[in-house]
């Protein structure tokens, strides 16, 4: 604190406040930067509460992770707020002693987007959040605080009325998809409220990151967090390990990874467009888009042997460098794909019978999405400017600017489909630019680093974020004094976005649920971990 001399205040020619330097209440880092734990100030909960709630009021700030981890007799908390304008991540921390009854005042009332984090902390550690609007269980993790509560008799939200009825769906759904439960409270055909309960997919993956310490085990685990986002999660994990080990990767590798990420986006977006067409009974679109997904994922197989890009991302290097013949087939694939895709998409988006099933169906507002902290596509389709490729870029995204698609803002099923259509084209263009960079690059590819050569910084925290096809993926790792991973936290974008689906269904006909669900295509296993 700068000393303030005892001069009369009005003698100062300038505002004194600008001169007073106070210790910041947070540590500021960039995406994929590691920081020594001792540099993160541990605040009293009162101070933590005020700081976090105040920052969350700014529209460009959102919480990318807030979680607790056990450390001896204490539960320590890390809260990361990302500032989209400055590309900074503010890291806040507080801690409490472990005891029978742990209580904290809930921040959810003032910053609604924090609900999911507080509920998770409450479920995992038994912390009671006073004034929490609803401490609904998140996933019934196997190492939860209260094992007497089980998922199969979860008491769903009820409204007493003779005029209402409930429709329960799940955990096993009609199609070949992951399990989860949807409970609709309906007035006739109209949905008053949709409650989503998840947790059936819980595999204890965060715990396995500690139990299976070999690098290849953790890499394979990261590819299995959500099988449809294997590249996204693996890139995020590799970023953490490389940052903690002080490895700077080659430009070439960074470009290749980014091509992998954008290909994953194209493959999933086109698959989703096909599913949306199935949902609205448009057979031609369903077939053509479905058939276009095949060459996309087959390209992945040609590149790395797996249609989902498993095996493509390894820490520090690659087993499958993108050589000239692969680049040539990639260009061929993109040209062929683009022609067929553009014709089909133009047709689909000009048919009134298709449009009437998408327009003004399942509309959510920008304000709602701000409030729930929606990320990725689900945020952008209402006009929120939230894309890590622009706001917190790393690697190739830093060198070659990506311009997010922001002109689709309706917030309905149409917007979710139209945004996919535009993002596919944007990704194709972006990959073409990456290819020309790759052609100008003369580095020889590195092999992945070996287990033994990897030394992680001790007592550190690393935050790694990637814009996956669904949105913001965020992993956080804390190391102990031996440089071993002490805690690993995973956050899939779906954690925030499931609430968007519930909001979309309000006052909608229940028969519109499938098309809404398909238009979001959120991850169950990414949420359940």
């Amino acid at each position, binding site marked *: 604190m700068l000393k303030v001399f005892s001069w009369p205040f009005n003698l100062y020619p300038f505002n004194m406040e600008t001169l007073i330097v106070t210790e910041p209440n947070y540590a500021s880092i960039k995406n994929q930067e590691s920081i020594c734990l001792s540099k993160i100030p541990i605040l009293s909960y009162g101070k933590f509460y005020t700081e976090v709630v105040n920052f969350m009021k700014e529209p460009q700030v959102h919480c990318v992770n807030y979680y607790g981890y056990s450390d001896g007799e204490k539960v320590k908390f890390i809260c990361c707020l990302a500032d989209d304008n400055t590309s900074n991540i503010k890291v806040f921390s507080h801690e409490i002693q472990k005891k029978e009854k742990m209580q904290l005042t809930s921040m959810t009332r003032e910053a609604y987007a924090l609900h999911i984090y507080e509920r998770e902390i409450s479920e995992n550690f038994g912390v009671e959040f006073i004034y929490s609007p609803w401490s609904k269980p998140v996933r019934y993790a196997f190492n939860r605080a209260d094992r007497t509560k089980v998922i199969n008799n979860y008491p769903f939200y009820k409204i007493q009325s003779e005029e209402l009825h409930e429709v329960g769906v799940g955990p*096993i759904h009609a199609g070949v998809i992951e399990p989860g439960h949807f409970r609709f409270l309906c007035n006739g055909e109209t949905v008053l409220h949709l409650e989503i309960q998840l947790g059936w*997919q819980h595999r204890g993956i965060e715990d396995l990151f500690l139990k299976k310490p070999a690098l290849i085990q953790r890499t394979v685990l990261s590819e299995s967090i959500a099988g449809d986002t294997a590249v996204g999660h693996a890139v995020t994990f590799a970023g953490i390990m490389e940052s903690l080990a002080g490895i700077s990767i080659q430009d070439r590798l960074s470009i290749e990874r980014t091509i992998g990420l954008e290909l994953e986006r194209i493959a999933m977006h086109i698959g989703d467009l096909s599913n949306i067409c199935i949902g609205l009974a448009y057979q031609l679109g369903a077939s053509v888009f479905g058939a276009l997904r*095949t060459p996309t994922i087959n390209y992945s197989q040609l590149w790395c042997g797996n249609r989902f890009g498993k095996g493509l991302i390894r820490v520090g290097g690659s*087993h499958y460098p993108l050589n000239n013949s692969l680049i040539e087939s990639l260009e061929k694939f993109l040209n062929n794909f683009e022609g067929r895709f553009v014709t089909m998409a133009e047709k689909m988006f000009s048919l009134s019978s298709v449009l009437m099933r998408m327009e003004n169906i399942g509309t959510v507002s920008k304000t709602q999405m701000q409030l729930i902290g929606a990320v990725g596509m689900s945020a952008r389709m209402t006009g929120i400017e939230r894309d890590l490729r622009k706001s917190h870029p790393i690697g190739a995204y830093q060198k070659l600017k990506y311009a997010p698609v922001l002109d689709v803002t309706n917030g309905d099923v149409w917007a979710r489909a139209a945004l996919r259509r535009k993002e596919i084209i944007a990704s194709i263009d972006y990959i073409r630019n990456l290819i020309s960079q790759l052609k100008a690059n003369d580095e020889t590819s590195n092999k992945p680093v070996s287990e033994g050569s990897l030394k992680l910084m001790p007592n550190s925290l690393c935050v790694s974020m990637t814009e996956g096809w669904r949105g913001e993926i965020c992993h956080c790792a804390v190391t102990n004094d031996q440089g071993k991973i002490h805690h690993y936290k995973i956050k899939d974008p779906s954690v925030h976005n499931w609430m968007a689906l519930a909001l979309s269904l309000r006052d909608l006909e229940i028969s519109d649920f499938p098309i809404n669900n398909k238009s979001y295509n959120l991850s169950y296993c990414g949420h359940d971990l």
Partner: protein
Amino acid sequence: MLFDEMKILLQHGKQFIPDVTKPQLPGPYKGRPEISANKVDEQALTALCPTGAIGTGPVSIDMGKCVMCGECSFTFPNKIKFTADYKIATNVRERLIVKEGDVNPITLDENKIRAEIRSLFGRSLKLREISAAGSNADEQELNACGNPNFDMGRFGIEFLASPRHCDGIVITGPISENMAEAVQVCYDAVPDPKIIILVGSDAISGGIFAGSGALNRSFLDKYPIDLYVPGNPPHPLTFVNGILEMIRKKKN
């Protein structure tokens, strides 16, 4: 107006694979491994495997555990080589263990296929898929089996919604504790003779999730398994060929 659709159909062309038993998979696809007789540091070799799929004396790879990361073949390329052979489904768990010197394809044991499977399901097999903590990669590949390319519907194989209309269940994922009851309830609802198919290394052995406290695999101890389809995730051709071999007698 109509010209647009004609153009699309022309571009779309014929998508189906005429004979699903024939295609060659391009690229470094990892299918059935072959293990040579070369001497290597076996301890170093087994330590590489993330799921403990590699055994010694003689060196073997358990395809039910293998997650196809290829780490062993990168470090010991002269010892282990993954071929592009995708026909790796079988009905005998032991046949998934490929030993040193094995170069023959993995097949089903004809004698262990239940008689009613051949007599009832040869032309029509309806299945209920249960994703029991599957990562959505296996599920997407199963969906792809019915798409315009692989089109298993032409063989009468189809996924249905109600277990009461189905002839068996297909399980993906390592079976979480939270899904254990749902798997049992669904299986009970399928009429006899019900068949069980495990798809993916997660379902067959727990895969990379083996040993997690969040799993409950006791369901698998109770019933015989009719088909194992290994992979991470299995290629649609692995699934379709495995099922065809199970429900139909070989022509030759």
